[in-house]
Structures are given as structure tokens and as C-alpha cells.
């Protein structure tokens, strides 16, 4: 029996040891971190699937745990991403200024995650959330910019405050108890709508969905290279967790759209999710930095998750939960491939890179597999989840959500192909002649994630059966899954068959290819240039403003949200200046007057 409490305490202790070890030797500390995370992962995997974790609390005061399929599903995915990423630490930490504390903070945030998904108390939930936010906030500025941490923290705090108010409403509503299960069940009427909105604000802020998405590209783009996969693959999913609480567990009784058989609140969330999909897709198409591009893609996939959870039936939930897994694997894989390239070349800007495939073929394959999944193409996991979501959307007849969902699906081709073409394919740059493939320790997680991406796409049945348990736990009926086939609402899908047929097709093509005359190998620079002699490979590499004609169609509109938030920040700054002017003036009497006035105002009716 593995105890949650002991695991958390173990992580805190391991964090301290890792801190000391890293101080002595970075490599040693990082290896220790890998083993610590591996221990946690193995304990979770061994006992968690059958709900065999020990939830008794002996040492920590005021904290209580319980286990649910829902919490476990999120926890295992996130711990897995943490484990994969920890393999990257030995090669990156030396670049950072405060490398000693990196492993400490990393393990502490993992402790926060375990707590957050296993607690049964709202106050504990909030505490663990804050633990995650605070630890990660100090991890992010180790990359490039402090501004990234500030904007991450700002949006997270907005979400936390909203959640805290919601928790207080529940507290008051539920007879002064912080218990999650009874608290959510006791909500009704206006209170339910109020908490619904507050929790959704928290969910949107964590998920980086429209309109609270500004922090996402800034934080993802500037975070340390090994931390971006965690941010995108794991931490964003916290928002999905709160979203599940709000959309499914609270689900306030608002008016109903008869045509779609859907509450208005849910439909509005679906529309916001759609906006998030479209907006994320368009911005990702425009982006030049590979990491920021993937960050916008996370935003778009967050939209899919929101859409899935706002359609209230088992099919959509299955799609949503499967998408959480598929996207975690895909985005972790993609970010890790980019991180490997960034380690070798020192940049993630697409216009400065090219032809990495000839140096790093395995990293290229990892990225390829990840983006196939991200674009929702068989035989990878993303296809299954998108198929389930499409089934649900079509079945409900949600036309406008449908536009966004299909647009995002096709649009994801466009943006995931860009790093592929600009970073890996194309001309080989002379400045990267000496670059080598990533070291073996970094290739281990790459291979594991590649394998899992394929596995989730070919044999989804086992995972879907587990998801069915979650759906039943949430009070809905699960979907029908047989060994190979998945039954949707209006059709049946056999992913294994698709993969097999695809393999047969490739085999046929390979036979055609191999029996024909062997090709003459030519240099990359020996290309058709309208018979001009070009000796500079940079001139033959088309990667800057890749989708320029498309971008031109919406370039005027693309900065609206940014301008709105800049204006908002200006207003807040002015407010702050006003406060400063009033309170911090040189005249002591004025300051005193205001302090007294405010105390009187606050205590009016209570004491006075």
C-alpha cells in the first residue's frame, strides 16, 4: 500500500536532498530527481489503477485525502509527463542561474499535484493549487524572461481568487464544510450559477483558454526548455480538472436549448471553447517561435477539451478525457523534440533553423509522431479523441461549434507542419554542421512517448474502458468498447484495422519503390532553381512568414486581444498611481486620514 501522504512527504524530502545534491553536482542531483519521480510514478501505477492507495493521514495536520478515478486519471498523466521530462534535466540545468533550486521546485510542484488530485477538501485543494503556482512561478523565469513569470502568475492569481470566492460560497452554502463531494452536491439555484462562473474563470485561466489566454504563449515560449513540456502537457490540465468540476459536477440548471438538448451555460462554454480553438489556431499559424507556436496549439486543444466537457453525454466525455491523454503525450513529445533541438542549436526561432533531420533523425521522428497525433491523423491517439468529439458534436447538431472544431482540426495541419518544414526539413545550414543527435538519456523518454502515441492510436480499448469508469463515477453512461472497435453514436471505428490497412498500403508502396530502378543520390543544394547558380543554402530555405498570404487576411485583427489586455494593464497601473498618490504622499496627515477613513468604512455596521 502506498500512502498519498507518505508520497507527498517523500517528494518534499527528496526535493531537499536533490537541492543539496545539485549544489554538489548537477548531474547527480538530476539523476536523483529522475529516481524520485520514478518512484512516485511506479507507486501510483502499481496501486492507483484499482483504487488501492492509502488515504489515511497521520502526520499532516488539517489535510485529508480520498481517491477517485477522476483524480487518479489526471494524476497519473501528469506524473508521467513529469517523469519523462526529468530525463532532460541533467543536460539543461547547467545553463540556469539558480540551478540548485530547480530540482527542489520541480519535486515540490509534483507534491502539490499529487495533493491537489487526491484531496477531498476544498481548502486543501486551494492550498495545493497555490503550492503548484508558486513553485512553478519560480521555475519559469529560469528560462529567458521574468516577464513570463509575472504574466503567468498574474493570470493564475486571477483564477485562484475566483476559485477562492467560489469555495467560500460553497462553504457558506454547505453548512460551513469544505468537503468537495457534499459541497458540490449541495449547490443549487443562483449560488450554483455563481460558483459555476467563478470556477470556470479559474479553469479558463489555468487552461489558457480564450479570453484568458495571453499568458500561455509568453510563459510557454520563455520557460526553460525542459519545463515547457510540463507546462503544456501537464499543468494546463489542472484547468481541465476544474473545468470538469464546474461543467459536469456543478452543471447548474439554466435554460435549455431544445434543438441541441443542452443547457445555455454549457453551450456558452462550448462557444468560448470554439473561440479558443479558432483563435489559437490562427495565432499559431502566425507565430515564428516554435515553442510559442506549440503554446498556441495548446490553447486550441484546451478549446477542444472545453467543447467536449460541455456536451453532456458519455461519448463527449470519453472524447474529452481521451483528448487530455492524447494531447499530453503529443505536446510533451513535440516540446521535448523542440527542446532537444534548442539544446543543440541554442535557438527555437524557425527562421534561424533548417535541415536538422540530417543531424537528428530520431528527434525528427519523435516530433513527426507527436504532430500526427496533434493534428488528429490516424494511426495516433489524437485521431481517436477527435473522432469521439466529432461524433458528439455532429450528434448534437452544433453547427457553429462544428465550424470551429473542423477549422481547428484542419488548421492544426497548417501550424504543426511549419516547425516540421522549417526546423527539420529544407536546406541544411552550414552553421549547424557540427550538431549531433541528442544523448541516449534524452532519447529514452522520446522513444517511450513515441510508442505511447502510437499505442493510444491503435489500441485505445483498454484506456477507454478506464475512462468509462470515470464517466460512470460522474453519473453518466459510458461508451461501448470492444477489443478493437469503438461504437460512436452514429458509426463504428476500428483503429487497429485502420492502422493495419495503412501498414499494408505502406508495404505496397514500399514494394513498388524497391523494385524500380535505384535513384541517383544528389546533394540538397542541387535543386531546381530556374537554372540559377545558388551557393547559399539560406536563400533556398523558405521558412520566414510561411503562410504569409493567409496571415495577411487577418493580420489587422490578430492583435486585438493583446491590445485589450495592454489597455487593461494601463488602467490598473493608473489606479495604482492614484492609490500611491493618495496614500504615499509626503503629507503624513493625509495618509493617516485615509487609513482612518478606510477603517471606519470597513467596520461600519459591524462594530460602529
Amino acid at each position, binding site marked *: 500500500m502506498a500512502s498519498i501522504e507518505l508520497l507527498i512527504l517523500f517528494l518534499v524530502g527528496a526535493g531537499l536532498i536533490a537541492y543539496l545534491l545539485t549544489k554538489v553536482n548537477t548531474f547527480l542531483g538530476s539523476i536523483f530527481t529522475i529516481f524520485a519521480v520514478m518512484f512516485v510514478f511506479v507507486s501510483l501505477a502499481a496501486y492507483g489503477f484499482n483504487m488501492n492507495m492509502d488515504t489515511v493521514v497521520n502526520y499532516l495536520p488539517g489535510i485529508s485525502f480520498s481517491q477517485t478515478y477522476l483524480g487518479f486519471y489526471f494524476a497519473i498523466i501528469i506524473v508521467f509527463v513529469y517523469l519523462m521530462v526529468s530525463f532532460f534535466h541533467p543536460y539543461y540545468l547547467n545553463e540556469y542561474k539558480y540551478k540548485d533550486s530547480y530540482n527542489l521546485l520541480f519535486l515540490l510542484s509534483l507534491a502539490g499535484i499529487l495533493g491537489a488530485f487526491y484531496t477531498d477538501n476544498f481548502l486543501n485543494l486551494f492550498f495545493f493549487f497555490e503550492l503548484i503556482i508558486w513553485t512553478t512561478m519560480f521555475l519559469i523565469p529560469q528560462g529567458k524572461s521574468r516577464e513570463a513569470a509575472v504574466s503567468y502568475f498574474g493570470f493564475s492569481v486571477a483564477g485562484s481568487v475566483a476559485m477562492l470566492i467560489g469555495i467560500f460560497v460553497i462553504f457558506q452554502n454547505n453548512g460551513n464544510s469544505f468537503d468537495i463531494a457534499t459541497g458540490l452536491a449541495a449547490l443549487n439555484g443562483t449560488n450554483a450559477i455563481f460558483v459555476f462562473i467563478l470556477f470556470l474563470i479559474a479553469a479558463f485561466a489555468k487552461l489558457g483558454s480564450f479570453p484568458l489566454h495571453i499568458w500561455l504563449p509568453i510563459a510557454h515560449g520563455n520557460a526553460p526548455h525542459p519545463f515547457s513540456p510540463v507546462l503544456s502537457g501537464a499543468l494546463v490540465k489542472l484547468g481541465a480538472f476544474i473545468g470538469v468540476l464546474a461543467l459536469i459536477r456543478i452543471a447548474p440548471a439554466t435554460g435549455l436549448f431544445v434543438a441541441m438538448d443542452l443547457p445555455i451555460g454549457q453551450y456558452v462554454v462550448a462557444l468560448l471553447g470554439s473561440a479558443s480553438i479558432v483563435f489559437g489556431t490562427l495565432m499559431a499559424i502566425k507565430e515564428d517561435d516554435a515553442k510559442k507556436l506549440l503554446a498556441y496549439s495548446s490553447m486550441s486543444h484546451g478549446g477542444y477539451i472545453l467543447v467536449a466537457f460541455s456536451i453532456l453525454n458519455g461519448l463527449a466525455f470519453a472524447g474529452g478525457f481521451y483528448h487530455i491523454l492524447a494531447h499530453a503525450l503529443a505536446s510533451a513529445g513535440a516540446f521535448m523534440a523542440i527542446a532537444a533541438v534548442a539544446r543543440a542549436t541554442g535557438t527555437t526561432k524557425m527562421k534561424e533553423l533548417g535541415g536538422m533531420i540530417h543531424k537528428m533523425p530520431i528527434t525528427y521522428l519523435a516530433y513527426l509522431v507527436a504532430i500526427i497525433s496533434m493534428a488528429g491523423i490516424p494511426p495516433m491517439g489524437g485521431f481517436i479523441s477527435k473522432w469521439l468529439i466529432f461524433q458528439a458534436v455532429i450528434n448534437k447538431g452544433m453547427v457553429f461549434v462544428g465550424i470551429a472544431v473542423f477549422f481547428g482540426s484542419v488548421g492544426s495541419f497548417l501550424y504543426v507542419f511549419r516547425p516540421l518544414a522549417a526546423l527539420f526539413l529544407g536546406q541544411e545550414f552550414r552553421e549547424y554542421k557540427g550538431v549531433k543527435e541528442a544523448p541516449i538519456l534524452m532519447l529514452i523518454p522520446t522513444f517511450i512517448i513515441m510508442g505511447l502515441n502510437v499505442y493510444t492510436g491503435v489500441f485505445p480499448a483498454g484506456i477507454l474502458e478506464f475512462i468509462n469508469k470515470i464517466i460512470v463515477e460522474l453519473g453518466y453512461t459510458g461508451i461501448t468498447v470492444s477489443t478493437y472497435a469503438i461504437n460512436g453514436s452514429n458509426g463504428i471505428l476500428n483503429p487497429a484495422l485502420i492502422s493495419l490497412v495503412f501498414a499494408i498500403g505502406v508495404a505496397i508502396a514500399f514494394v513498388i519503390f524497391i523494385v524500380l530502378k535505384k535513384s541517383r543520390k544528389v546533394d540538397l543544394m542541387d535543386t*531546381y532553381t530556374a*537554372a540559377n*547558380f545558388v*551557393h*547559399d543554402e539560406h536563400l533556398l530555405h523558405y521558412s520566414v512568414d510561411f503562410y504569409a498570404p493567409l496571415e495577411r487576411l487577418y493580420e489587422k485583427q490578430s492583435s486585438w486581444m493583446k491590445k485589450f489586455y495592454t489597455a487593461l494593464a494601463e488602467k490598473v497601473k493608473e489606479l495604482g498611481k492614484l492609490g500611491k498618490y493618495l496614500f504615499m504622499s509626503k503629507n503624513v496627515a493625509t495618509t493617516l486620514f485615509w487609513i482612518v477613513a478606510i477603517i471606519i468604512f470597513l467596520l461600519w455596521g459591524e462594530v460602529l
Partner: protein
Amino acid sequence: MLSTKFTPKTKLTKAEIDRKWWEVGDYFRRNSLWLLMYCTGCCAIELPPSMTSAYDMERLGMGPMATPRQADILLVSGYLSLKTLRRLIYTYEQMSEPKYVVALGSCPINGGIYHDSHAVINQLDQYVPVDVYVAGCMPNPESVLNGFVDLMEGIKNKTMNGWKRYHEHYEWYKENQKNSLGEVIVHDEFHQ
């Protein structure tokens, strides 16, 4: 020789099998000739009438292509200055084999009216092997099409093997190119 019950089946050698396949390939090749038009000179004006409804090149299975990789015929239409010859050789070497060269007009044959220019070469087959010459200044569409039909006949009779000659006498061609052009692939500020 047909194999019967009494004569043992003769086993074909690999060379013979290759030759058989090559003949099959020749059938397809001569019925689907794609052109890369190197429109350097005035003879290029004869190509629109030979492609459009009056003479309709497409009924012979011929058509224009965009890049040298896809094309079978390098069609040199008219005079070649030194600068274009460099690009012509570069293009010719990029084409996939088997490849043929057809030269229109009198300029590639002997320099034509530019025979004494400092910038125009006199004889194309010194630099790349030419399979068919179509004489005339300019040749009219009938003779252009006649040239192509000759090329098809030649492919059938296995006489159109300029690309093999280029491989066999590669040094000789390179020598000629070097003598007339200096260097084939130029380096200067516009190409770096």
C-alpha cells in the same frame, strides 16, 4: 527460340532480361515525351502553333513540363550565349535519365547569323550531346514536329543515346565546356 517438350527452356541471362525490359521501357518513353523548353532564341515562337490546335503536339503524347527533373527532352530553341550555355549545362545535368536534347534552328548547328559574335557559341554538340537537330531559321511547325517524330523513331531503333555518350565522353565534354566557358558554375555576389 520457343521451348517445347524436347528442347530445354533456355535461361535468359541478366543482360538479356534487362534488354527486354529496356525495350518495354522504350515503348513508354517514346510515346510520352515531355518537353523542357529552353526558350533562348527566336525559334521559341514556333512552339505555340505546334502545341495548339493547328498541329496539336499532345496527340503524340508530348507536352510541356515545368522543371528539368520531370522532363525527357531538353528543347533548345535558338542561339545560345555563353551565359545561357552555362545554365543549359546545369539544367541538362539535373534532368533524370534517359534524356534527349533537341535543338531548333541553325544557331545551335553552326552559329547561324551570330557565328562571329563574341558572346554566342557556334556548335552546341561540342558541349552537350544533341540527339536531333531541326534546321531552319526558323524551322516551321511541320519540321519541328517532324524532328520529334524522328526522335521517336530513333528511340525505337536505339540510336538516340546522347545521354550515354555524355557519360562515356564526360571528360571530353567537360574539356570543351572549360575551354569555351572558363568555369561552368560561376561564383559571384549574386549567387552567394
